[in-house]
C-alpha cells in the first residue's frame, strides 16, 4: 500500500514518469539516486562530460550558457517535474550548458554510466527512456527558440538591454 502511495506521489510530482509503466518506474528507481541539493550547487557545468539525467522532484534549477567575459545567458528555468541533463545524455557529448540549483532541490539522478550501459546493451528500458526524452528535449528547445525569435519580432523589449550590454562590452567581440 505504501508503495502505491509512493508511486502515486512520485508520478504526481514528476509527470515525465507517467510515460512509463509502473514496473518500468520501479526499474528506473533502482537505477537512480534520490538526494537533496542545496541552492547554488551546479548539477553539472558547461563542458562537463554527461553526468546523466536529473529529474526535479522539488525545488528549481536554471540552465545557463557561458557567453564569455563572465557573462552568461539563462536558457531555461525548471521547477518540480522538470528534466535536466537530457540533451547531453541524448547526444552523449559534453554539456553545452550548466545547470544550477536556484531553490533547494530534491533530485532523482540517473548517472550517465548506468544509463549508457543499458543503452549499449540496447535494453528495452533504455529505448523507452530515450524515446520519452526526445520530445522533452524538443519542447525545451522550443523555449530557447522562442527567446531567439522574440529578440527580432519584439525588438523594443530588447533594444535597451542590448544597447546597455554593447556599452559594457565596449565594442565587438
Amino acid at each position, binding site marked *: 500500500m505504501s508503495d502505491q502511495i509512493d508511486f502515486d506521489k512520485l508520478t504526481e510530482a514528476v509527470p515525465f514518469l507517467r510515460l512509463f509503466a509502473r514496473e518500468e518506474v520501479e526499474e528506473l528507481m533502482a537505477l537512480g539516486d534520490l538526494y537533496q541539493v542545496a541552492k547554488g550547487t551546479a548539477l553539472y557545468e558547461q563542458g562537463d562530460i554527461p553526468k546523466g539525467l536529473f529529474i526535479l522532484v522539488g525545488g528549481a534549477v536554471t540552465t545557463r*550558457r*557561458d*557567453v*564569455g567575459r563572465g*557573462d552568461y*545567458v539563462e*536558457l531555461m528555468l525548471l521547477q518540480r517535474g522538470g528534466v535536466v541533463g*537530457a*540533451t*547531453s*545524455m*541524448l*547526444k*552523449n*557529448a559534453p554539456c*553545452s*550548458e550548466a545547470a544550477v540549483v536556484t531553490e533547494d532541490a530534491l533530485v532523482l539522478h540517473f548517472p550517465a554510466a548506468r544509463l549508457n550501459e543499458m*543503452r549499449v546493451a*540496447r535494453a*528495452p528500458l533504455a*529505448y523507452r527512456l*530515450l*524515446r520519452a*526524452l*526526445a*520530445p522533452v*528535449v*524538443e*519542447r*525545451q*528547445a*522550443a523555449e*530557447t*527558440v*522562442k*527567446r*531567439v*525569435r522574440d*529578440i*527580432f*519580432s*519584439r*525588438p523594443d523589449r*530588447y*533594444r535597451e538591454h*542590448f*544597447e546597455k*550590454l*554593447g556599452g559594457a*562590452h565596449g*565594442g*565587438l*567581440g
Partner: protein
Amino acid sequence: MTSDDPVDWLERVPQLGGLSRREIAVLADFCEVRREKTGKIITRQGERCTSAMLLVEGRVACVTAAASGAPVGLFAIEALALLGTLHPWAIKTAPFTLQTLRPSVLLVFPQAEIAALEETSSPVSFRALDFLYQEVARSVDRFSVAYGRLYRYPEVTLQKMEQAS
C-alpha cells in the same frame, strides 16, 4: 551523388556505419529523398511541422522574421544535421524559416513514419532512433549557441535589428 535511393544516402551517415545494408534498407522505408535548388524555402516560419528532415548534402539558412516582416538570417546549417521536429506535440509550428543556400539533399521522415518507427521494437529501430535523438540534441545546441551569440555580440544583434526595421 545523384542517387534518389535513401539507402545510398543513409549508408554515408557515419553514425549508422555499424548497420548492414539490409538494416539500412529497413530504416530507408521510413524516409524519402528530397532534392532542393538554391533559394528554396523548405519550411516557412509559422507553418505546421509535419516532418523531420536530415540534411545529408548542402547548406541551409535559418531565418526568422523581424517585427517589420523582413527576414533576419540567424545562422547556416551544414550537412549532416536534423531539421524540423520528430514529434507533432513537441513543436507544433515551424519556429523559423529554413531556406537552402546551395543545392541540397534532404531525407524526409514524416512524423507519422517516425511514430511507426518508434513502435517498431527492434535493434535496427533502436539504433536508428538513437541516432535521430542524438541529432535532436545537437539541433537544440545550435539554438542555444545562437542565443548565446546574440547576447555575446550585442552590436551584431543591434545591427540585425536595425537592418530589419
